[in-house]
C-alpha cells in the first residue's frame, strides 16, 4: 500500500475547486427548487377540487417512487429527442430539485396538517381571504415545525449530487475520478472529496438548526 502523498492533494486542488463549485451550485439551486416546488405540491394536495388534487398526487407519487438516476437519464437522454435540451448541469439541478420536491411536499403536508383546524376556522370567522390565511396564518406555523425535516433532505440531496456524474456533470466525485484516471492515485482525491462532503454537510445542518431556533419563539 502506498503512503499518503501530499503533492497529489495539491495537484488535485484546481479540479477539486471546480467540482466543489458545481456541487454547491447544484445543492443550493436544487434545495431552493425543491423547497418551492414542494410547497406548491403541498398546497395542491389541499386544493378544493379533485381536478387539481388527483393529478398532483399522481405526478408526485410517480416521481417519488422512481429512482433519481432513472429520472436524470430520462431528462438528459430522452427529453432531447423531443426537442427539450439543457446542459447537464441545468438538467441535473432541475431533476434533483424536482425529485426532492416530492419529499419536501410530504414534509410540508405534515406541517400543514399539524396546524389545528381551529386556525382555519378562526380565519374563516374573520373572513380572511384564502391567500392571506395561507401566508399569514397557516404557513408561518407549519414551516416552523418542518425546518428540521427539510434540513435532513438538504443533507440527503448533497449526498445524491454524485449521481449527476452519470449525465456528465463534473461535480466533486467525477473530478476526483478524472484526476485518478490520469494519475493512478485514488486515495488522495477520494479522501479530499469525502472530507469535503462532511465539511459541507455539517455547516448546512448547523445553518438549518440556527434557522429553526430563530423561527421557534
Amino acid at each position, binding site marked *: 500500500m502506498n503512503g499518503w502523498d501530499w503533492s497529489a492533494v495539491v495537484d488535485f486542488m484546481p479540479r477539486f475547486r471546480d467540482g466543489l463549485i458545481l456541487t454547491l451550485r447544484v445543492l443550493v439551486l436544487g434545495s431552493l427548487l425543491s423547497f418551492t416546488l414542494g410547497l406548491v405540491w403541498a398546497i395542491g394536495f389541499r386544493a378544493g377540487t379533485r381536478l387539481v388534487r388527483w393529478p398532483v398526487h399522481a405526478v408526485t407519487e410517480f416521481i417519488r417512487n422512481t429512482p433519481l438516476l432513472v429520472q436524470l437519464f430520462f431528462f438528459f437522454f430522452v427529453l432531447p429527442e423531443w426537442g427539450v435540451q439543457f446542459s447537464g448541469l441545468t438538467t441535473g439541478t432541475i431533476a434533483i430539485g424536482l425529485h426532492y420536491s416530492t419529499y419536501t411536499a410530504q414534509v410540508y403536508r405534515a406541517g400543514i396538517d399539524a396546524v389545528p383546524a381551529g386556525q382555519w376556522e*378562526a380565519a*374563516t*370567522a*374573520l373572513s*380572511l381571504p384564502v391567500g392571506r390565511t395561507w401566508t*399569514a*396564518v397557516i404557513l408561518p*406555523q407549519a414551516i416552523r415545525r418542518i425546518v428540521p425535516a427539510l434540513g435532513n433532505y438538504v443533507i440527503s440531496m448533497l449526498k445524491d449530487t454524485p449521481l449527476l456524474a452519470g449525465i456528465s456533470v463534473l461535480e466533486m466525485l467525477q473530478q476526483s475520478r478524472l484526476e485518478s484516471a490520469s494519475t493512478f492515485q485514488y486515495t488522495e482525491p477520494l479522501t479530499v472529496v469525502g472530507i469535503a462532503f462532511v465539511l459541507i454537510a455539517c455547516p448546512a445542518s448547523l445553518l438549518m438548526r440556527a434557522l429553526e431556533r430563530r423561527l421557534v419563539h
Partner: protein
Amino acid sequence: MSTDPSQTFPATADELIRFDKVTKRFGSNTVLDNLCFSVRPGKHVTLIGPSGSGKTTILRMLMTLVQPDEGTITVHGDRLFPADRKQVRAIRRDIGMVFQQFNLFPNMSVLRNVTEAPVRVLGLSRDEARERGRELLDLVGLGDRCETRPAQLSGGQQQRVAIARALAMRPRILLLDEVTSALDPELVAGVLDVLRDVARTTDITMLCVTHEMNFARDISDEVLMFDSGTVIESGPPERILSAPEQERTREFLGAVL
C-alpha cells in the same frame, strides 16, 4: 320570536337569523332534526341542552364552517346554503365567532391578532386598525399586553383577546361557542364580565352556547332548550331556567345547576 319546531313557522318581518327545517347528520347520527327558529336583531339568545344536542353545530353553520343536509338558513333575508361566494362573504362579514379553544393566531402578537382582519378585510389603515385594536384590548382589560404572544397569556386572557378580535370586525351577530368551557374556574368570571359588558353596551345580536346558567340568565332575552336535535322549550330565561314546563329541561337544569 317564533320557535315552534313542529308545523307552522310564519316568517316575521324583522327577523335577522332564520333556521327553517334544518337537518344535519354526522354519519348515522342526526344532530339537528327539522330545526326551526328565528332571532330578531339585537336579541341575545342562549342555547342550552345536553352535549351532542346540536347547539354548537348551529353556530358553526351560521359561520359557514358546516353545511346543513336539508333546510334553509337565512341571515337578514339572504340565503346561506346554497349561495354564491359573494353572498357568503357578505354574510360572513357580519358574523363574528368566539371559540371554545380561543383559536388565536400563535404566530402573531396580541395586537396583530386583533388588527389583521380589519386591515385585510375591512380595509382599515394599519394605524387606524391599531388604534381601534388598542381600544378593544383596553375594553377587555389587556391594553398593556398588545405586543405579547398569545402563548404567554392565561386561557382567560386569551379568550378575552379572542373577544376583542371578533369585535374588531364590527359584527352584527356574535356567536359564542362555549367560550368558558376550556378555562380554569377562576378565570371564567373575567371573561363573562367582558361579555356582559358587550351585551349591555352594544346592539350586537348574540347567539350563545353555554353551560353557565347564571350568565345565561343575566344576558339572555330568550333561552332555547335543545334535546335530540330540536328545540323542546323556549322562552325568557326567568321562565325556562326557573320554572320549565318540560320534564327533560328540569332534568337537565338539575344536572348543571
